[in-house]
Structures are given as C-alpha cells and as structure tokens.
C-alpha cells in the first residue's frame, strides 16, 4: 500500500513539474479582464488555429481589471504575462506610462481615437456605460436619463452601481473627473452615498439586483444588460446623457508586455484578437460588443457607434487622473 502511494505521488509530481514544463516554446500567457465566459472561447479558437497553448489568467468580478493591472505591476521585474487583454482602456494606458508595455507594429490599419499612436496598445470591440432599469418597477416615461439622477431624492435607496474603484466603473469615474473636475466628482459621490446608492461587487451584480427588483435601476455596461435581456430578465437599457455630456464608450484593448517570456507568440495573439473574425465573434457572443475596427453590424438591441452621442474624453488624461482620483474615492466609499 505504501509503495503504491509513493509511486502515485512520484507520478503526480512528475505531471506537476515536468508536464507543466513540456512544450514551453509552444505556449503564451494571456491575462484577460474580459469575462471568462466570453474571452475563453476566443482564446480556445486561437489555440485551435495556431496550436499554441494559451495559459490564461482571468479576473474575478469583484476586482475587475485593477486586480490584473496590479499583478502586472507587481511582476514587472519578472513578467509572467505575454499579452494583456483589457476590457477597458484607461488601465492599459496606466501600464504604458509605467513602462510595462512594449510597442508592437500591428499589420492592419490604425484607428484614430481607438489605437495608440505610439503603438503600445490597440482597441477593438467596445461597450458603453449605460443605465439598466427594471421594467416592472420603473415606468418608461419616468425612467432616469442621466447618471446625475443617482443623487435625485426620488431614487433614494433605489439605485446601485459597482464599486467605483474597479474596471469600467473606475474608468467612468475618471471620465467624469475629466469633464466635471475632481471636486465635483467627489461631491457627486458624497451625495450619492447620502442618497443611499448601493455599491456592489461588479457590473453583473448590478444587473442581477436590478433584475430581481432589489433596486429600480443601476449603472452598468452594455454587455451585462444585453446578456441579461437575452436570458429573459425584465430589464431595459438606456443610453444616459444623450442630451448632455454623452455616453462613455470603452473599447477592449490589447497590448504586449515588456520582457514577455514568449514575445513572438504574444504578437500572434494580438494579431488574432485584432482580426475581423474576433470582433465579429465578440459582437455575436452573449456580450453584444460594439464593433469599432471593422464594418460589422452590431446585434439587435445594441446601438451602432454612429448612433450614439459619445462622451468626449482624452483617455491619456484619464490615466493620469486615475491615480489621483482612486484614493479619494476610496476614502468616501
């Protein structure tokens, strides 16, 4: 019995050690903050097409994006990641400013406003920051049209949003800081807290709680609302501030990590993610992402880029603002 246990242990250790090390030249490490349910099929498609094994690290809903970003910063002296696929843009720019990214010449066209002119990152398949309402609790004629209604007394205790320290919500806060100024943003969040706005663990949690009727409406992303509608949830999407500052538009971004252990494989992943096929798949996946690189019609229920009044922001500025704004937001929340 003991010899059998020992043999089993040795064989298992062999698989752990050696199995992990076999074929290292045929692998690539991708950190992705796009929901695993959408990003995994894309990465598996890459594996199937190229035969290169993808070692993916996904982020969890509660600490979206910022968790991976800080992991990349912590690993900068000894990077483990080859490609960072971010589901937003500002944190990618923060990484660029910290010297963690490496430039790469993408073989396709550069899209103005969605690609870095210095070629450190490229954008594709975007989402918007939207209002999600519960159709049974909110009459359409009286539904909120602006994020400013978060502080409206008639919505006291009836609104939720994700923690404004992570993911696209953090990006949204930085965008508001750029347009309004930091002081007005901080004041806005204080008033939101006084109005008993609930801060929850992620955009999908916002959608779920609104769908259950726990809250009347919330602020989340297009992909969360779209996937909820597909599943039959009693929710609806509203593009906020179309008469005002506009709706924030956030593309996915992909970048190569400086000092990546498998740079050539990383470049192949980037080419794959920026291909028409990927953007089409993301638009047709349950997340309903909005194509920006190629002329692909979005799915029904998702607006086209040309049909939306987009919030005019400079993403490079937002990256600088984020470091100032986040600690101040944290002290309020």
């Amino acid at each position, binding site marked *: *019995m*003991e010899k059998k*246990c020992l043999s*089993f*242990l040795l064989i*298992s*250790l062999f*698989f*752990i*050690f050696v199995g*992990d090390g076999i074929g290292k030249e045929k*692998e690539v*490490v*991708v*950190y992705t903050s796009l*929901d*695993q*349910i959408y990003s*995994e099929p894309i990465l598996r498609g890459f594996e199937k097409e190229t035969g290169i*094994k*993808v*070692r*993916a*690290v*996904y982020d*969890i*809903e*509660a*600490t979206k994006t*910022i*968790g991976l970003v*800080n*992991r990349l*910063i*912590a*690993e900068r002296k*000894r990077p*483990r*990641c080859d490609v960072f696929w971010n589901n937003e843009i500002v944190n990618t720019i923060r990484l660029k400013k910290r010297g963690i990214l490496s430039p790469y010449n993408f073989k396709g066209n550069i899209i103005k406003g969605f690609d870095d002119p210095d070629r450190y990152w490229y954008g594709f398949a975007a989402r918007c920051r939207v209002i999600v309402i519960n159709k049974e609790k909110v009459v359409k004629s009286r539904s909120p049209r602006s994020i400013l209604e978060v502080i409206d007394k008639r919505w006291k205790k009836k609104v939720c949003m994700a*923690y404004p*320290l*992570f993911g696209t919500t953090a990006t949204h806060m930085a965008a508001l800081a750029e347009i309004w100024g930091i002081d007005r943003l901080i004041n806005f969040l204080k008033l939101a807290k006084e109005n008993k706005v609930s801060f*929850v*663990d*992620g955009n*999908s*949690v916002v959608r*779920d709680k609104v769908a*259950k*009727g*726990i809250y009347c409406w919330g602020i989340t992303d297009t992909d969360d609302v779209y*996937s*909820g509608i597909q*599943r039959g949830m009693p929710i609806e999407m509203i593009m906020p501030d179309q008469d005002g500052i506009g709706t924030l538009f956030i593309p996915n971004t992909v970048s190569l990590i400086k000092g990546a252990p498998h740079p050539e494989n990383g470049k192949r992943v980037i080419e794959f993610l920026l291909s028409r096929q990927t953007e089409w798949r993301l638009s047709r996946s349950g997340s309903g992402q909005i194509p920006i690189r190629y002329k692909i019609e979005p799915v029904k229920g998702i607006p086209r880029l040309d049909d939306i009044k987009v919030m005019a922001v400079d993403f490079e500025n937002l990256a600088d603002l984020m470091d100032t704004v*986040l600690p101040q937001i*944290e002290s309020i929340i």
Partner: protein
Amino acid sequence: MKRKRYKSWTIFLAAFTFFLIIVFPPVIVVIIELLKLKASSILSIGLVEPYKNSLIIASTSSLFSLMISLPLGLIFGSRSFRHPYLFIVILLIPLIVPPYLTAKSWIDLFVKTPIGGPLFCGVILSLCYFPIPLYLIVSGLRRIDSELEESALLILNRWQILTKITIPLIYPYIATGLILIFLFSITNYSVPSILGIKCLITKLYSDFSIFHNLSKSIWIAIPMIIICLFLSYLLGILIMEREFISFDISPSKGIMVSIFENHKKVVYGIVIIFLIILFPLISLFKEITSLKILAITFKDSLRSFFHTIVLSTSGSLFLSIISICCGYMFQRKKFWKNRLLNAIILFPFSLPSVLLAICITHIWNRAIFSILYDTPLILIILWGSKYLPLTIRIISDHVSQIPVEFEEAGLLSHLTQFKVFRHIVCPLLGSGFLLIFWLIYILTISEVGGTLLVIPPGIETLSIRIFNLLHYGDLKVVASTSIMLILSLLIPISFLLILKTIQTLKGKDSGSIFRKDK
C-alpha cells in the same frame, strides 16, 4: 549507536524542516509588518463595519452549528444508533459541497426577496460546517463511561443526566467544534463575496487587489489576527493532551440515554438531512435540463477537472505524509504539553488563506524561487501553510492512542526508530491517514480566496471556475460544472475506501485502534 539514532530520525527532521519552511514564513512576514505598525494608519482605514459584519457572521455560524449538531450528536452518539458508517458518509455531503454553492442555492430559493446580510451568511456557513462539531461531539460521547450513566439513572431522570453529566463531560469537544467553526467562518471568503457583504476578509482581498500593498493588507487583518491568535491559544488549551477525535466508531460505544424517542429521532434526522444536506444538491441538479449542456460543459471544463484532481490528490498525499511524520514526532517529543507551543503551531491554521496568500506572494515571487512560484507547487505551499497545523494535530491525537509499549517492544528487538515507525506505527495509522487525506482534499478543492491570488497562469481549479461562472449567472453551466466538482471530490475517496474494504475483507485490516490507558 549515536550516528544510527541520528540517522533514524532524519526523515522526521526532514519533514519538520518542510513544515517550518511551508508554514512559518508567512507568519514571520505578518509579525514583521505588525512591528512597523503605526496606530494612526489603522484608524484611517475604516474597519468598523467590516469588523462588525465578520463578528456577526462567525458568531451566528457557530451558534447555529451548535443548534444543529448537538441534537444530531446526541442521536448519533447513542448506542441505539446502529449505523455509524452511514452517518459518516451522509454527513460528509455538506462538507463536500462548497459553501458558495450552498449559498447560491439558498439565494435562488428566495429569488424575489432581498435576502442577504451577515446573519444570513452566518446561517449558510453553519449549514456547511456543522458536521465538524458533530463529529467532535460524537467522538466525545463515545468516550463516556456508560457506568456513570447507569449509576445516575438510579436517581436522575434522563434530562438531568444529559444536562448534569453528559454535556459537562463533552463540553471541551463542543467548545473545540465551536472554535473551529468560528475560525472557518471568519476566514471564509467565497460566501461573503457572493452575498456582497463587506467584511474583513472581502476588504482584505479587494484592498490587496487594488493597491498590492502588503503592509496595508496586514493592518486591515489586525483585528482578525488578534481574534485568531486568541482562539488558537484557547484551542490549544482545550485539546492539549486530550484525545479529541475518536477513531473507534463501533456500535457498542456511546451513551445510553437519549433525549429523543426513536420515532422522533427518525423524523428529526430526515428533516435535517433533506433540508440541509440534500437541498443544495437538488437545487443544483434541477437546473440541468438537457444532457447536451451537460456534455458541452464537461468538455469545456475537462482541463479544470484534470487540474483539480491531480493538484488536490498529490497535494493531499504529500501533506498527509508530512503530517504523519511531524504528528508522530510532535506527539512522541511531547510538543503538545506546552501551551505556548500549542498556540504557535496552531496559529497559522487560524489565519485566513487570503492573508497567507498575500504573504506567500511577497516571499516567493522572486527569480530564484521561480521553480516554486511559477508552478502549481505554490498552491501546495499555500494549502500546507493553512492546513498542516490542523492535520498534524489530528495525527498526533491518533498516535497518542497507540500504546508506547508496542514501539518499545520494537526498539528492544533492535529496530531503529524509523523502522518502528514504518512497520509498527504506520500500519496502525490507516484510519488517521484516510481522515487527514480526505480533510485536506475537501478543503483544498473548495478553497477559493487564497488560491485566486497565487494560482499560476494556465491552471484553473473547478472551484475557481465555478466561482467565476456564478457571477455570470448561467445556472445550467454552473450546475453542470458543480457536478464535476462533486465527482472530483468523490473519486479519490471512493478509490481509497474500496481499497480499504478489500483489505478488510482479505483480513488485512490494520486500522484497529487501541485506547491508551492513562
């Protein structure tokens, strides 16, 4: 002779070295960071609400566990209960189903009600962890000398016997169980995260994820560290020199007096079994409406399934072997007689795995340790740092039940200490080995918080996969993947149980236990 003696203890010293390397570095990091502490820094963090919620969760969980486990313990611990193996198997189910799945099942039951909060979280955790105090209570009850009850029956009624004799005799087991539940609950990350509760552990995780600041993370954990230190000291006192787990479950042992009539026992047992044990499973299985989804999910999760089985099995085996060697050494060298040493050894177990993972990242994320940090071995280090103290204590308890005379006889026959250990002690530790292997296996498979922080790229366990999928809400996929998780929990233990049964049938059973005469 001296050289031979030295050589014979080499394997134990090697195991002890592993133990020190795996378990204590994170504790040292915690202590170093605590020494850099400034009082003003803690005050600025804002810990009142998380601290309050953590205490509510842990206290509620302990109390509810007691309310469930004590009556059940009095049923299963009585002589009239004839099927001890059956209860062991059935009551493993709440431990097998990960707590976050149980939480999800109950949340979905109250789909339109805004249920949540720390109280609800505490109740959920009690439903998951109540078998722990239950097993301890049954162990205690089976040690009670039936002559005490017989004498008492002459003058007291059964309620008086239970309250004045039985329960006072088993209070250390009850207290130990409550402390363990408290520690498991206050350090559980997955359930408060699913419920969106702001408690110490979720704040610790999200804060480290945002700022990657080790010092700040440890400052946040200070209330928890103080509580854990106190509880591990208390635990050490309670279980010091006490055999707190009985490995003898023969039907002839147990109390004579029971508070329940036979039919009431059956009703109570069935209600508990259905509500608590079967409900999460039924609620999961009913989501699977088509075999096609099951097949697709199985195919997508196959890699995770493989990782889970290999990592947890090999990790459990390796840690069990370390536990046996260290447990034997600690018991024979009388480590457990010293209260302070008890507390020090148990302290790492009481710390949350998230905090341990943060410290492990700080220590091992260096180029010279890449062979550890960049491979799944880092997970074994994390699991070892959390669970080795507990499993060593369990094995020591088992070793204490083996008469020293057996080993002395071996030594007199000119066997070395190691040969005595290998040929005499090890065969008698069969049940103990199975218990700790199974315990480590279940705990490592369900572990989420710390694993998320250290898991290398490309490796994904089923628990992490399910935990992520829970947020996207596709319950069919969650349910299908959960079945794979439950299968992964059952496969190795079934294999071991079959082996043991074959050995028993062949008459090679070496798992018999001897009670130590004091």
